[in-house]
């Protein structure tokens, strides 16, 4: 394979993934507003474009035209760095999540993920842990008590939930005996989805994912009624938009991770029995990945508008006294399953 082929392939894939991410993020915001409206017996935004379809672009145009205000007490460098850090981490994490089986196009085999990192799961964990810095920087550098409280809460919360998240992933890694996303997906062929094999791990990972992405019921770093806007109280214009986009991009990553680790990635059970040709099978498999991610994204929004926010001590109780022991229990369970059936 010549070097230019690899470069062109990578650039095309990066552009494809970035475009999809940006479009999904902007429409996720619209979906959030629509679903919340429907749950509250309202219509939601339906004035811009066809039934509100152009609302995200109107929002972006508005945010671009807003004045960028930096508080006097702010640490200018960190205050500017934080939103870029947030969005950089959110968008670079997606590189290792495969969204389809390897396909053959123009006579060359193309893997439908940006980078085949053999420690992909660790890479995602490492980058999402870095995400807490963006929020803590934002909270600390704003020079506002609300932002600072939000930042502190966020760091404490994310560290607590990362523990149970890591241990839940431990179960998955034991099943696949590999840290590579591709191997993990291939280990879940048929109905051997990890969500079915290790339901406890699935639930602990799901709950931790909610906490990691700072979504309700665990959105204490933002907690509007107590902290105004939490860590992004002092942000405006596109800096605020960056945090907003990062939050939604994190949702997409969390959904992608859940699909990859527990719902079989792009696999559709027993699809090879249908006897379709290879392009059709691959298209259906790729679509199934997007459908699964879409359903999880809807689930994130759905949960947000159904469950009230946890109190801070309840959050910590749940993290350390319930989720952590459960994820340990899950590891024991997986060990027993491997012992008995392998």
């Amino acid at each position, binding site marked *: 394979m010549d070097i230019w082929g690899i470069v062109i392939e990578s650039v095309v894939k990066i552009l494809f993934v970035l475009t999809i991410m940006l479009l999904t993020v902007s429409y996720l915001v619209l979906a959030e507003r629509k*679903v919340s409206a*429907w*749950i*509250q*017996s*309202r*219509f939601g935004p339906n004035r811009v474009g066809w039934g509100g379809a152009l609302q995200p672009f109107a929002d972006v145009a508005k945010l671009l035209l807003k004045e960028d205000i930096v508080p006097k007490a702010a640490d200018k460098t960190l205050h500017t760095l934080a939103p870029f850090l947030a969005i950089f981490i959110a968008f670079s994490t997606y590189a290792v999540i495969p969204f389809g089986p390897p396909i053959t196009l123009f006579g060359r085999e193309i893997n439908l993920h940006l980078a085949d990192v053999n420690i992909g799961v660790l890479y995602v964990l490492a980058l999402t842990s870095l995400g807490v810095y963006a929020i803590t920087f934002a909270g600390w550098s704003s020079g506002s008590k609300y932002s600072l409280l939000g930042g502190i809460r966020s760091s404490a919360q994310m560290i607590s939930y990362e523990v149970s998240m890591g241990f839940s992933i431990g179960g998955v890694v034991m099943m696949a005996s590999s840290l590579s996303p591709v191997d993990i997906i291939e280990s879940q062929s048929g109905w051997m989805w990890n969500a079915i094999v290790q339901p406890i791990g699935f*639930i602990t990972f799901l709950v931790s994912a909610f906490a990691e992405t700072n979504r309700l019921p665990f959105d204490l770093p933002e907690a509007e009624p107590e902290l105004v806007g939490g860590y992004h109280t002092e942000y405006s214009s596109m800096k605020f938009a960056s945090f907003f986009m990062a939050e939604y991009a994190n949702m997409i990553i969390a959904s992608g991770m859940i699909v990859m680790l527990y719902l079989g990635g792009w696999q559709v059970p027993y699809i090879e029995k249908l006897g379709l040709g290879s392009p059709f099978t691959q298209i259906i498999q790729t679509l199934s990945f997007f459908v699964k991610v879409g359903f999880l994204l809807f689930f994130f929004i*759905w*949960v947000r*508008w*159904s*469950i009230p926010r946890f109190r801070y001590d309840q959050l910590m109780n749940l993290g350390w006294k319930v989720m952590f022991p459960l994820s340990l229990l899950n590891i024991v369970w997986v060990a027993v399953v491997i012992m008995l059936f392998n």
Partner: protein
Amino acid sequence: MPVKKRKKDLNLMENLYIPEIAKGLALTFKTMFKPKVTMEYPEVKFQPPASYRGRPVLVQEESGVERCVACGLCSRVCPALAIEVRASETELEKERYPEKFEINMLRCIFCGFCEEVCPEEAIVMSKDYELVFTDREDAIYGKDKLLVPVANLKDRLEFLRNFK
């Protein structure tokens, strides 16, 4: 501080959270498909009931003359001092008529006292709630804007006869 006891302790299923959360999710999911309560304003307009107190208007008889006899009671009772009446004489049976009748809509508080005090049922609260002006002068409504044909106020007049 005394510890407040719960009326009822949670049972095991409720303590597990998950079934209760599932119940809540089911409820919100059902709500998503229920009819919406929002009225889409510029296209669909709220039709108020007869008891609604919109902007006060002067009743105009079928002959084109206003009922008002310019007694000035409304102006006297108005708590916000929004009404200004200047009386004059007329050849008609009622002998007096308002030469000038102005309501400052920036002052009006829609209390309905003017309507209540009026001996002639000449000033009533209408159903009109779309009050928009771009400067303070526009907000002072003269007779040209206040006179409304009696046919358009039937609902309110009937309501007043029944309940006043």
